[in-house]
Structure formats: structure tokens, C-alpha cells
């Protein structure tokens, strides 16, 4: 157990093989932790950048202690890097790299990932991608400042930071591709005896579909990245049309390219990417809801079907980000229809989760609170996607704070809450200790209120048309006048949010050393396999004392006639009746 968290004693450890054991480890649990720590630090850093921006928005031009007043260039750098870091260096590595890596092999009863060394390589690519991104702040004229979307021609004519951004992305994409191959092979090949596809926990399903999204959607962005690199380094003009005039006069390039080409390639990835941000979160929430309502997930098969459907459709809705680029009627009709269709499986999954609550015997612990918080917050975020998905209503809303509000509701009190829930839930698995409940409650309620204080006013600001990426928050526009004061509300809430992360950080580090020891390995009395593994799985290959055999579906809670209220998957009991138990006969 002491080995479970290298970083707490990173400096004192001079023992043999430290690097091999913790840095070049090929064990999925260690790699999961590496991902976890790195991603949390990036998340905190991305939050920090945003706090500086929120300071500027609330009080334009007022100097920030130690840093001085922001310039528009700095604001744009921070914005672009906040988006990039949160998405590619924070949430995805935490949701997929950390939780996926740690939990998936355990949940399917596998000894490790299918390709342990590839797994190590994924982490190292990710790490160096992050280093490249961060170091871009220190090159002349600073980091990328064309937004996380990096639209050319702006991105093509921007400064050196943009080149660093592109190289960073190439590394991160490579990392994700390697990871995706590994996950898919692991889930297809290394399932334990009896672990059929319809006995996989929903979390594993979510990771499985996510891996496919990464595998097939990322390469076109990589292609686009190469083309933009060529534009920047070889002076090609893939994204530059003829006849451009910049501040330095006519641009000396061949021309004939298309700025929209980048947008197509970018959003071909970036829409599936947003589902990469949400599916693992849904998986985590499902695990925790089933466990803490003490009943099977309602409509497990329907949920899996929705998940597959969602994954498939996410590839053909991308141009809903591009309605305003001058799209005609035919193509926009197609993308509006697919966008509306893709909202249905989300409604189905959300409904199923909510219905799962009905008839449960709900245990309210911190993990559960965060999972519960996810539901209405994702609801608001998802619902605000609808007016954006319809082209006419997208006209007033596109590129306003309404969009910012929409997706932050999904990713911040949505995904981040789910990830917090996951941390509280699997903490005993990793360390053999529990996190403090009181601090947990403070963390939850404080975050819930603060998050809404930040993101709801964004929706209010967006409707009158306040644009995003405005250095002064819309101060020059009179149509923003009625809502401009919300900037202060939002910024204050953001700092309050920071304040309420302190209990979490304290709780997290304290509990690693001092948390209450769990009495039994299966602390939450859960049914899934990770809790059947050795109490704190030994670091090093091998998770299970004996290879488990699986006898029934993942969520056999409160089975009538069974003495305890949970039947772990590797305990043979004849069951029938529930959605997931059906597969016993098949």
C-alpha cells in the first residue's frame, strides 16, 4: 500500500530502482497514478490561467499582484492554453489515462493492459507533449494565442508559440492513439473467463467506445496539424487563400488554400473529442450510482446501445460548429438533423441513470453526492446544446458566452464532478484508506454553488450577444451593458471555487497517509471485479491472486432471496430476472 503513491515520498526515496519502478513502470496501476497526478496538476494550472483571465474580466486593466496588468496578447495566450490544457492535458488524461488505466484491467479481470510497454510509452508521450505546451510560454512572444481551435489564417500567421502548440499536439495525439489501441485490445482480448460483453461494467463500455473515438477521430486532426506545420515551417498555403494583406502588407505566399479545410478537419476530431470528455464521466457516475443505490442500473442494455449509437453518430455532427461559416440549406439540414438525433441517446442515458434512483436505498457519501451533482448539471449543459444545434437559433448564440456556458456546464460541474466522484470512490482501492467525509461534503457543496455562480451567468450574458474571447469582457459594447456586471459575479465565484478546492487538496494528501484504514478490501460492498482483487493490488504485474471467473452481470445488487445485498461478479449465484442477469442463460 505504501508503494501505491510514489509522489508522497518521491524525494526521500533513494532506494534501488526508483526510476524503473515509478517512472519507467509498465504496470497499469502505476501508470494510472502517473497520469492521475500529472493531469490533476495540469487541471490546477489550467484553472490558474483562467483565474488570471477572470481577474481581468472583472476589473479590466487592474493590475494583478506580481504579474501586472494583462495585455490582450497575454489574455489570448491564456485563453488558448486554458482550453488546450483543460481538454487535452487535464480531463482526457485523467478520465482515460488515469481512471481507464487503473480500473479497466481490474474490472475485466485482466493481469494488466495488453501492451504494458506501449502503455508506458503513452504516458511519456503525454508527459513530453505537456512539457512542450508549457515551455511554449517561454518562447519569444509567448504561447499560442489563436484559441484552442487554432483557426487559420490567424494561426498560420501567429508567432512561434503556435508551432510549439502544433508539436505538442502531435505528441499528445500520438499518446492518445497508442492508448486507444491498448484499451481496445485489452478489452477485447483480456476479459476474464465468463466476462462476456454484456457483463462488462458500464464504465468499461464507456472506455471502450471512447477508445474508438480517439482511434478514428484523432488522425484527421493529426493530418491537419501536419498541414498547418507545413504552412508555418515550409511556407505552403494549404489554409491560406490568395490575396491576403496583413499588417506588413501583402502576404508572400502562393495562396489558393482554404481556411475552412482546417475547420472541417479540426471539428472532425473535436466533436468526437467532446464525447471523449463525457463518456468516461458517465461511466464513473453509473458505477457509483449502482453501488450507492444498491440496485442494478436501470436499462443497462439500453444504455449500452445508446452508448454505441452515440459513438457512431458523434462522427457525423461536426459541422454544427460551422453553421455560421456560410453554410447553405442542404448541408446544414443534414448536420442539424444528426445533431438533434445525437441528443436522444444522451437523454436516454440520463433518464436511465435518474430512474435508477427510483426504488433504491441511497447511501449518501461524498462520491455519491458528486455523482448526483453530475446529473442536473449535465442536464443543463446538454439542454443548452439544443438551441446551438439548430442553425437559426445558433445565429445569435454562436461564439457568445452562451456557448461557453453550454460546454462548461457539461465539462466542469459535469465531467469534473464525475472525476471527483471517481477519486472519492476508488481512493480506498488505491490506498486502502478512505478520504474524509466532512471535508468531502464541504468540497462538494462549495463547488456546486461556485460552479453555478460561474457558469449560469454565462448563459445570461450570451443571450444578449456578448462574444467570447473578449479581453475586456464586452466593456465596449452597449448591448452588453445590462449583463456586464455579471463578470464580477463570475470572477468572484471562480475565486470561491478555488477556495473550495483547498479542502479537497488537503483531504487528498492527508488521507494518503492518515486516512481511516478500510476494514475490508471491498469497502463499498461492490459487485464489480476491481474490489475482488487483492486489497490494494500489489504494484507489479498481476492483479488477482487467482484468475477470476465471472458468473453474472455487473450490477447484481439487492437480489431477492439473497442474504447480502450484493453478489460480486466472481461469486457463483444463480440469478435471473434483471437486465444484466439475462446473460447468464446466454
Amino acid at each position, binding site marked *: 500500500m505504501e508503494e501505491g503513491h510514489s509522489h508522497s515520498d518521491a524525494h526521500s526515496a533513494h532506494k534501488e530502482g526508483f526510476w524503473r519502478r515509478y517512472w519507467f513502470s509498465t504496470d497499469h496501476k502505476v501508470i494510472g497514478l502517473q497520469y492521475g497526478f500529472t493531469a490533476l496538476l495540469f487541471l490546477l494550472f489550467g484553472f490558474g490561467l483562467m483565474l488570471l483571465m477572470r481577474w481581468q474580466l472583472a476589473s479590466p*486593466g487592474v493590475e494583478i499582484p506580481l504579474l501586472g496588468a494583462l495585455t490582450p496578447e497575454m489574455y*489570448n495566450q491564456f485563453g488558448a492554453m486554458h482550453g488546450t490544457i483543460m481538454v487535452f492535458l487535464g480531463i482526457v488524461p485523467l478520465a482515460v489515462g488515469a481512471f481507464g488505466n487503473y480500473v479497466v484491467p481490474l474490472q475485466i479481470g485482466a493481469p494488466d493492459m495488453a501492451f504494458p510497454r506501449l502503455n508506458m510509452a503513452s504516458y511519456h508521450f503525454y508527459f513530453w507533449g505537456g512539457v512542450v505546451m508549457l515551455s511554449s510560454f517561454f518562447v519569444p512572444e509567448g504561447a499560442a494565442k489563436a484559441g484552442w481551435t487554432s483557426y487559420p489564417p490567424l494561426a498560420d500567421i501567429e508567432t512561434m508559440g503556435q508551432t510549439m502548440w502544433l508539436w505538442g499536439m502531435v505528441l499528445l495525439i500520438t499518446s492518445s492513439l497508442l492508448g486507444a489501441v491498448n484499451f481496445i485490445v485489452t478489452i477485447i482480448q483480456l476479459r476474464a473467463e465468463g466476462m462476456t460483453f454484456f457483463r462488462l461494467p458500464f464504465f468499461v463500455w464507456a472506455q471502450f467506445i471512447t477508445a474508438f473515438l480517439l482511434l478514428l477521430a484523432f488522425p484527421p486532426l493529426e493530418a491537419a496539424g501536419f498541414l498547418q506545420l507545413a504552412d508555418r515551417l515550409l511556407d505552403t498555403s494549404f489554409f491560406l487563400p490568395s490575396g491576403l494583406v496583413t499588417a506588413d502588407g501583402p502576404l508572400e505566399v502562393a495562396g489558393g488554400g482554404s481556411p475552412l479545410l482546417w475547420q472541417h478537419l479540426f471539428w472532425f476530431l473535436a466533436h468526437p473529442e467532446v464525447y471523449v470528455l463525457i463518456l468516461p464521466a458517465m461511466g464513473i457516475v453509473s458505477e457509483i450510482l449502482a453501488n450507492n443505490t444498491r440496485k*442494478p442500473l436501470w436499462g443497462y442494455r439500453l444504455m449500452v446501445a445508446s452508448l454505441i449509437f452515440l459513438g457512431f453518430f458523434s462522427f457525423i455532427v461536426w459541422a454544427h460548429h460551422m453553421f455560421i*461559416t456560410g453554410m447553405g440549406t442542404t448541408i446544414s439540414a443534414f448536420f442539424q438533423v444528426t445533431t438533434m438525433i445525437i441528443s436522444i441517446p444522451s437523454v436516454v442515458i440520463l433518464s436511465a441513470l435518474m430512474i435508477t434512483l427510483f426504488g433504491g436505498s*441511497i447511501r449518501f457519501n461524498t462520491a455519491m453526492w458528486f455523482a448526483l451533482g453530475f446529473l442536473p448539471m449535465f442536464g443543463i449543459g446538454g439542454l443548452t446544446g439544443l438551441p446551438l444545434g439548430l442553425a*437559426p*437559433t445558433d445565429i445569435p448564440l*454562436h461564439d457568445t458566452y452562451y456557448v461557453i456556458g453550454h460546454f462548461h456546464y457539461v465539462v466542469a460541474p459535469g465531467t469534473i464532478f464525475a472525476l471527483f466522484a471517481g477519486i472519492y470512490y476508488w481512493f480506498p482501492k488505491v490506498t486502502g484508506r478512505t478520504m474524509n467525509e466532512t471535508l468531502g461534503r464541504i468540497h462538494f457543496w462549495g463547488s456546486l454553488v461556485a460552479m453555478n455562480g460561474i457558469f449560469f451567468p454565462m448563459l445570461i450574458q450570451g443571450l444578449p450577444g456578448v462574444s467570447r474571447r473578449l479581453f475586456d469582457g464586452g466593456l465596449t459594447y452597449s*448591448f452588453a451593458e445590462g449583463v456586464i456586471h455579471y463578470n464580477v459575479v463570475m470572477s468572484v465565484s471562480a475565486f470561491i471555487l478555488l477556495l473550495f478546492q483547498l479542502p479537497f487538496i488537503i483531504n487528498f494528501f492527508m488521507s494518503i497517509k492518515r486516512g481511516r484504514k478500510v476494514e475490508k478490501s471491498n469497502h463499498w460492498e461492490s459487485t464489480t471485479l476491481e474490489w475482488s482483487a487483492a486489497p490494494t493490488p500489489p504494484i507489479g504485474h498481476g492483479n488477482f491472486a487467482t484468475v477470476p471467473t465471472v458468473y453474472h452481470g455487473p450490477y447484481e445488487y439487492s437480489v431477492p432471496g439473497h442474504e447480502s445485498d450484493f453478489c460480486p461478479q466472481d461469486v457463483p449465484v444463480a440469478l435471473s*430476472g434483471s437486465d444484466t442477469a439475462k446473460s447468464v442463460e446466454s
Partner: protein
Amino acid sequence: MNDLSKWMGMPLDASGHGAEIDIMMSWVHWLMLLLFVIWAPFFIYCLWRFNAKRNPKASYTGVKSKLSSYLEGGVVVAEAVLLVGFAFPIWATIKNDFPAEEESMIVNVIAEQFAWNVIYAGDDGQFGQTTLTKPIEIDTSDPRGDDDVIITNTLHLVKDKPVIVNLTSRDVIHSFALPNMRVKQDVIPGLEIPVWFVPKMSTSEFRREMAKTMPISGDQRRRAQYPPYRWIAMQDYPTADGSDMIAEEGQRLSTRVLTQLYEAGITEVYAAPEMEISCAQLCGGAHYSMRGTIIVHDTQEAFDAVLEENTF
């Protein structure tokens, strides 16, 4: 009652097609609200009713009813209605039903970092070439361009006269956003994209509608380095002794003027804003300040006079 637009804080609608969008916006939000209002009480009820203390034994089977399927079916139907009943026809009008050219005003807008260059064709109705210099100029070697007029950052229009704006950019992508007209169109170099609308409200009507007394505070000065809203005085403000004017009706209340008023002891002004053009796409450092205004004249004559003034 179906129109939530005011209530949702949508800006004053001054265009011909804006109402349709607003109504549609309202219906979408009604749908969202409805879904939320169905689920939220159910959610809260579950949390209360099925607390482990109140319900120590969970039910294995859970909900049997098909209610949620109906709800999901309902969502499908509602979305279909929104698509077929609203989205498709409105979008088709906006994209395809351009007004006849003879009856419309046609202007070219060339966006650049960080200005909106509005070009009027003049008497011959034809546009000439523009130069590749910065700032942009009319290419005098092109006879069609003789009478062309460039006005930067102000779009002059005539009330009730349809306008077709041909948008293009010389450098990066901008976005031509007119919140009051419910118009937004990305301006993409290499493409010339037309948008059209009908201004239904003149600037004087708009100002009257939006006019209000607003407080002047020392705050204005703190914001001095960032241009604050450009308000227009709706009445005369003479100096205390009446000998001079600090601000006349129709004059822009710059930070300097506001400071003078404040120092003259005036703490409230009766003023109105302009209709604005904002740039909605990140286009570089000064993206935030790429602001323009729309002036909708009551009559063609007033418009012509402005063009006259701007011709050399």
C-alpha cells in the same frame, strides 16, 4: 406568452426576420425548461424518498413503467417539430430568399485586423477594385470605382430598405455580428459571403426606445483606458452658467465629455446607445475592440447626404 425573448434578455430586435428567430428561440427554451421541470422534481423526490434511512431495502427490479420511453418519444417529436417547423424554413429564407437587387442597398464589407471597411458603390451601382494597401483604398485606376465610398466602422442603412452585405476579409477570419439585426456571419478570406436583412427600425427610433437616464460615476474614469460604451446624449447639456454646451443632443458621450459632465456636477445623463457591429471571431490582439456601428436613416435623402459628405 410564447415569446420569451425579452425575458431572456435578447437585445432589441430591429430587423425583419428577427422575430422568427426569437420565437424559435423561445420554443427551444420552453422545451428545455419543460424537460428540466419534469426531471428535477422527480430527481429531488427520489433523493428524499429513497434515502437509505427511509428505504433500507432497495428494489431489485426498480421502475417497470414505460413512462420514460414516452418522454423520450416526446423529445423526438418536439425536436422534429423544431427542425421541420422552424429551423428548415427560417434557415431557407435567410439563405435563399435574397431580396431583388434593384430594390436593395448593396454594400461590400471588407474586414481586416481590426476594422470594418464598408464600401458603397455610388451612383453607378458598380464596385471598383480596392488596393492592397493598409489602410484600404479605392483603386483609382478602375473607372467603376470612381464614385465608390469607403466608410470605416459605420454601416449606413435606410429604414425598411432591404440590404445585401457582401462580406469578405483581407487577412484572418472575422465574424460580422449584428445582435440587433439577428445577423451573424463569419467573414472568411477567400470567400465572399452575402447576408441580407431588412432594418425595420431607424436609429432615431432605436435611440428613443433605448434611451434612459444613466448614472455617471468616477468609475468612468477608471475605465478610461478601455473605451466604454459609446452613449449618445438625448438632450442638451449646457454648462452651469448656460453660456456653453458640454454636450448637445445626438453627440457621442466620450469619456472626456462624461468627465466634464461629472465635474460640472451632473451625475445623471439622459442617453441612448447605438446599434452595433461586433466581431465575434477571435482575430488577433485587438479582436475585443473591433467594434462598428449601424446608423439606420429614416429617409433615403438623409442617407444620400451622408454618402455625399464622405466623397472626396
